[in-house]
């Protein structure tokens, strides 16, 4: 082998520059050109090298995989492979959600294709890669261990008091990203005992940490900060009742009256400093503060007459999402969609938060042309990214199948449609071939999703 490599080196640099090694078992014939001899030597030695290979003994096999203690979703292999090939990540995640509930794991043949996706969608996919997946990831040097968020969450759940003490002791020593993650986990079993450390966080150098602390300090009325904000909010709404009518006067605060820890909202065109200050306060106060006794439509009507109605609305939208106040979310969503002439596409911000019933009711009315513009509704459905019911899926196909944009929109929706809506795609559309192709594409996506989900049925 050594001689062969020497001859190979000579051939590489040329016999004009290097001399061939002497090889005893292949004597020189005399008068032979060095390049000719180099070629013969290479041929002979290569043959000897090839025939003389014995293999090497210094390579250790990789460790073997641990036993899989969960059921392998064998039947999912073909459709899942198809979804991975077509890079249909939402479809894969939908399968993973169902597989996770059934304690099923991915077929090992798909692990190499799936692992890069696990890095991006750790929370959804880690539970379905099983012992074999974790083993393979470790062999490949992929970092799939729990994130800091998870570690902190576990610590907080196990012993909130100990976590609080630990955070108080370590707070200054942590870098800001760690501080942010640690403060956010105080939301687990949040109590009045957490107030001191949250107030420390409220004065942090980093805006992100101050905002995280404020979120928590405004979430419970017993905190001083929440109380202070409630006091600031109290004079904002003034109902004036006369013999014949009731009117609402909105008093916006001056920015100078607001505490320094209350962050400023991003500037909005057409809003003055007082309107912006109003948004800042309203967005951190629970919507229930405004005491409408459930008559929100009436409240909106009165509100609309105020100069500050847009600012009030902006604040209410943020607050409804922040405090997850479902009746307010639904009422605001309905208002924004029904008055799209004023609010344009503002309802998009709430499309994902409206209750399924409200979302469905408005969407169906819009698609059937009863109320609302169907374009607006399509925008809302896109923004919501939520799974669509069978009825809504069918209505979407029926409404959009001959739209000029159907080839773009329908396949996009097919990832969220109810899989049984495939029945709606059976009827051929005897029109332009683009619609026919769209129908087939939607059908293929729905069919793949249906096959993927039903491939888990035997494990249910």
């Amino acid at each position, binding site marked *: 082998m050594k001689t*062969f*490599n020497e*001859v*190979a*080196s000579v*051939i*590489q*640099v*040329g*016999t*004009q*520059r290097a001399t061939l090694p002497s090889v005893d078992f292949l004597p020189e014939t005399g008068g032979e*050109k*060095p*390049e*000719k001899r*180099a*070629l*013969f*030597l*290479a*041929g*002979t*030695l*290569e*043959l000897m*090298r*090839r*025939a*003389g*290979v*014995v*293999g*090497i*003994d*210094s*390579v*250790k*096999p*990789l*460790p*073997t*995989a641990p036993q899989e203690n969960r059921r392998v979703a064998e039947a999912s292999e*073909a459709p899942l*492979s*198809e979804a991975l*090939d077509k890079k249909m990540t939402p479809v894969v995640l939908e399968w993973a959600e169902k597989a996770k509930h059934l304690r099923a794991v991915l077929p*090992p*043949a798909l*692990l*190499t294709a799936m692992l890069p996706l696990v890095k991006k969608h750790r929370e959804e996919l880690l539970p379905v890669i099983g012992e*074999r997946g974790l083993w*393979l990831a470790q*062999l*490949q040097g992929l970092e799939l261990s729990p994130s800091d968020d998870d570690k902190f969450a576990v610590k907080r759940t196990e012993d909130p008091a100990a976590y609080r003490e630990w955070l108080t002791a370590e707070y200054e020593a942590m870098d800001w990203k760690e501080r942010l993650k640690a403060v956010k986990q105080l939301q687990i079993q949040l109590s009045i005992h957490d107030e001191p450390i949250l107030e420390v966080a409220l004065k942090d150098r980093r805006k992100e940490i101050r905002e995280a602390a404020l979120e928590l300090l405004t979430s419970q009325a017993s905190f001083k900060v929440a109380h202070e904000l409630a006091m600031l909010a109290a004079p904002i709404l003034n109902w004036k009742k006369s013999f014949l009518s009731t009117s609402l006067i909105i008093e916006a605060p001056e920015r100078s009256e607001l505490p320094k820890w209350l962050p400023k909202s991003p500037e909005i065109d057409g809003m003055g400093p007082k309107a912006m200050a109003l948004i800042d306060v309203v967005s951190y106060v629970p919507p229930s503060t405004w005491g409408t006794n459930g008559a929100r439509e009436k409240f909106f009507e009165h509100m609309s007459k105020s100069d500050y109605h847009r600012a009030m609305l902006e604040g209410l939208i943020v607050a409804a999402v922040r405090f997850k106040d479902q009746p307010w979310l639904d009422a605001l969503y309905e208002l924004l969609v029904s008055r799209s002439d004023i609010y344009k596409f503002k309802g998009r911000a709430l499309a994902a938060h409206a209750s399924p019933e409200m979302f469905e009711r408005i969407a169906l009315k819009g698609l059937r042309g009863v109320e609302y513009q169907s374009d607006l509704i399509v925008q809302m459905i896109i923004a919501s990214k939520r799974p669509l019911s069978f009825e809504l899926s069918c209505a979407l196909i029926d409404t959009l199948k001959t739209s000029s944009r159907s080839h773009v929109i329908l396949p996009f929706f097919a990832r969220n449609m109810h899989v049984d809506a495939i029945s709606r795609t059976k009827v*051929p559309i005897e029109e332009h071939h683009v619609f*026919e192709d769209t129908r*087939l594409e939607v059908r*293929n996506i729905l*069919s793949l999703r249906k096959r993927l989900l039903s491939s888990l049925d035997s494990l249910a």
Partner: protein
Amino acid sequence: MPRLTPEQVIALAPDASAASAGRELASPAKWASIGESDLAAWGEAKGSGKNPYQTAVDLKDLAYKCSCPSRKLPCKHALGLLFRHAKSEIEHGTPPTWVQEWLDKRAERSEQKAEKAASTPAASPADAEKRTEKRWSKILAGIEECESFLEDAVSQGLYVSQSARSWDQMAARMVDAQAPGIATRLKRIGNAIGVGEAWGPNVAGQLGNLTLLLEAAKRIETLPEGLKADVRTAVGIPFRKEDLTGEPVEDVWDVLGSAIETEDRITTCRSWLQARSTAKWALHLAFSAAGQPFEFQPLIGTAFHAKAQYYPSAYPLRVHLTEIEPQPFQPRKGGLIADGLEFAADVWAQNPWAERVPIPITAGSFGQKESDWFVIDSAGRALPIKGEDPWHLVALFGNQPIEIVGEWNGSSLNVLCSSDDPWT
């Protein structure tokens, strides 16, 4: 043809999307009518158009017919039909007229071909000898030119010598000299210069092997018959199956490995077969141009009884198969790497131009050293693996010891097939 498995149907698909579309068409709802006989499977696939697509598959020779506009071969409808056939979901019946007509036409064409071959008067030995002499003198002239080219290259050194284009030009001259085998080797060398870390020894080995071939071709008359045949084949004068005269070996052949490669627009399917009674190896080659299907493609995991006629060689491996009858697959256990290497050494001792030798390894696992991958046997011996890393196999079998069949070229093993079922 034995009944295909779904995995084998996937292997027939021209690409992944055709396989997936075919799998989708394996649902009964997609077919207006369907049936099969011993010779063919057929069906009417519901498409987007008014009329269903008429699809038929010749199960004996794996030929396809479909009225759909797809250019893929087999198309998704043929694959869907084969998936259903693989799952034994099709009822036996009498072929409809359009299928029978197609089968009859195929049989007719096949008969015509055989008749034509039989009726073509064999060239007189004197004429054939004259033609061979003429061709050989052309080849010898080409060889002389090629030798000068190689010597120049080695004299100047490969770093500064001719570019890849000049190797291609020399290869083209060898095609003109009617030595396509030498041309292919020249192109490979030109493409290997400067590629990869170990290109120096790799290229030197190929250059040396080509030099031995050129020298052997010049002295062909002095060589024993078997080696003479190997030189002819390596130079690029293949034997025609009609000229094979050896006694056929009748046995059941298990298909243990298969590789498909495309070079110069010709796709070659190499299938490694093992005789059940003697464990003798055989190599079946099938060729196709421009995406056409192979005339016969033995599939891994199938077996058949057949007469195998070995092509002449100092170590015969390539075979021509006739009278093929399907049989259940039943391969024997592989061995240690040392056994495989001994077999390889034996082959190369007799035919230095054999490019690959099959090596079956029992209880093989995978290991990594730096960035290189290896197959390791139960005795702890390891061989490097060619091409892509085997992560998918490691994931699939959890690196438990498995049966592996690979092609060994003297430097790396091309893993063709692996299974966690111990072969008995």
